[in-house]
């Protein structure tokens, strides 16, 4: 088991606001996006609050009555593989994982697809840290 897989996926995901907000290019690309989306890392749910490209808050669940625009759900192990410096085929892209049934997309996909590069880069941000 590599060092990457040894770090809990939840821990790596919780670094997301710092990683994203420190990346001026990424924040700029997301400047027209203000939304809340749900990410599940295994059984742990997070609400990611985005205001004009900045991750202003990351809330850890469980949630009972909360709204979100779209959701991305995958097992913790899948996220860990996704964040490997050089991911294996099938774990290298969000849509590779949804096609394989490893990850699921739900909800209103319009803000996701209108800002797809931004959202994909946000979700992949923990990968860069290990680079």
């Amino acid at each position, binding site marked *: 088991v590599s060092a990457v897989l040894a770090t809990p996926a939840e821990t790596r995901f919780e670094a997301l606001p710092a990683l994203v907000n420190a990346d001026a290019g990424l924040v700029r690309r997301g400047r027209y996006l203000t939304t809340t989306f749900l990410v599940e890392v295994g059984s742990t749910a997070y609400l990611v609050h985005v205001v004009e490209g900045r991750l202003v808050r990351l809330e850890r669940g469980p949630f009972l009555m909360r709204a979100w625009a779209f959701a991305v759900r995958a097992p913790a192990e899948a996220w860990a593989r996704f964040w490997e410096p*050089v*991911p294996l*085929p*099938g774990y*290298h*892209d*969000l*849509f*590779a994982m*949804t*096609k*394989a049934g490893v990850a699921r997309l739900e909800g209103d*996909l*319009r803000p996701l*697809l*209108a800002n*797809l*590069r931004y959202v*994909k880069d946000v979700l992949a941000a923990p990968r860069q840290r290990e680079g």
Partner: protein
Amino acid sequence: MADLEPMVGRYLRLDLGGRSHRIYFEEAGTGIPLLCLHTAGSDGRQFRHLLADEAVTRHFRVLAFDLPWHGKSTPPPGWHDEEYRLTTQGYLDLVVGFAGALGLDRPVVLGCSIGGKLVLHLALAHPTGFRALIGLEAADEQTPWYDDTSWLHRPDVHGGEVCGALMSGLIAPQSPSDTRWETLWSYMQSGPGVFKGDLHFYRVDSDLHDRVGAIDTTRCPLYLLTGEYDFSCTPEDTRRTAARIPGARVTIMEGLGHFPMSEHPAEFRRYLLPVLDEIRAASVAPPAPRANR
């Protein structure tokens, strides 16, 4: 002295389906014609590294056109009032018409993705017209990885941005940044609805799964090369296709994705050059008489 690259570009006037077209193409090299077909929603620039590779152009006349509506090819008059859709017959007519107009003698055709799928159609429709066929990221059918192509062309989602962002995942993580982003740039530039229209051919109009078994590789050798990171046309899709075609040759390319010639040219040529050597050897020497056993 000016640092000029070797390829030159020209426009060919060609009537297709009763309409006049103006097809842009680039070429370099001399020898066996090698006609290259780009992926959906992109254009012939994907082959610029191949067009500049002396190891190839020393023996091959490499040509790459932009499909109508793509790159520098002009959409036909009246385009503004129709929905673009690439069809199997239209694409076949274009390739055969282009080769005929330029007098290419039994060219080798190398096509990627939709181009790779067309290669399979060429093998069925014109088995004696080509000296070899090379399908990159090609299969008889593949399972869609996004099931609503209307996202590619609607007013509230930028078509170029979403096409580029979707395609980014099909590039292998090992591919260099410069060539990765150049590959995506052409996706970001394609005309409104063009990528979606190409997928009509890829997904709707060109199912081959019950037909590829009729491909006769003794008349025209068929090579299928697929990148291990391609989850659109997966290595398994290509292997399954090849298993239905006696004599088809399969190579799974490590560390490459859906755009091998443009996302990582240096890595791709390691796989392509031996194929081209083999085609050239067969082209120079007549096939050896079969030994009696």
